[in-house]
């Protein structure tokens, strides 16, 4: 499961009485103490439970303070996009196709979980571009892009 950040703001009382049980899949809790000053405290689930059962006034919450949660995201976001998989047969020899595609899918899942899908997508396109350049050479890629621009854009 990957993580999605959810921000909940409220005053001290609201934060203190917030029912953490409605977010059973909370991974990490981040309490923004003073947003304007850019100060924040990173807290674990243990601290979240502590806040639930104890007074929070000693944490010195300021107006506009809030909490953000990392909650679980659906598994579909962790899968490599289909277009990436469709490109692989054109840029990889048959012998390595399954192994490289599997490695890309495995790493994509790791990065999407750890740093989010946009990061994983950037990484994937970078890797695919690298594989293309290795397979066809930079001049072939430039020629292909040039031809495409001429045909489609009339350059």
């Amino acid at each position, binding site marked *: 499961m990957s993580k999605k950040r959810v921000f909940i703001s409220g005053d001290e009382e609201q934060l203190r009485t917030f029912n953490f049980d409605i977010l059973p899949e909370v991974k990490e809790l981040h309490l923004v103490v003073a947003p304007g000053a850019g100060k924040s405290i990173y807290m674990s689930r243990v601290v979240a439970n502590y806040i639930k059962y104890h007074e929070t006034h000693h944490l010195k919450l300021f107006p506009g303070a809030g909490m953000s949660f990392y909650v679980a995201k659906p598994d579909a976001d962790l899968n490599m996009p289909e277009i990436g998989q469709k490109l692989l047969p054109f840029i990889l020899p048959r012998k390595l196709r399954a192994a490289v595609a*599997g490695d890309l899918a*495995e790493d994509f899942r790791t990065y999407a979980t750890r740093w989010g899908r946009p990061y994983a997508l950037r990484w994937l396109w970078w*890797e695919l571009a*690298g594989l293309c350049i290795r397979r066809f050479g930079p001049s072939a890629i430039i020629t292909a892009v040039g031809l495409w621009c001429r045909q489609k854009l009339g350059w």
Partner: protein
Amino acid sequence: MGRNTLGEFEQAVLLAILRLGPSAYGVPIRHDISERLGRAVSVGAIYSALERLERKGFVSSWTGGATAERGGRAKRFYRIEAPGVRALDAARVATRNLWAGLPEGAPA
């Protein structure tokens, strides 16, 4: 690069395979090298080096089992062969000879 000599990156790949043992396939090899060299290494670079090493007879490969997180695709495992071990030894001796007589650390 000669047929029996190793480039720096090829050495890194062979050493990663040695370290990882029976669990040496693309992903852990790439992560091990990235961690030790302190820079990002692309999937393409790893497989190019592995193909070269296989052609030279330094490593052999076989297809392993598929897992769900890989979308049902099989892993390709790599094992270092005797010529690969000999090439690594030769590379180590060559590096040691090149450094012989020089003090430890960066030169002044």
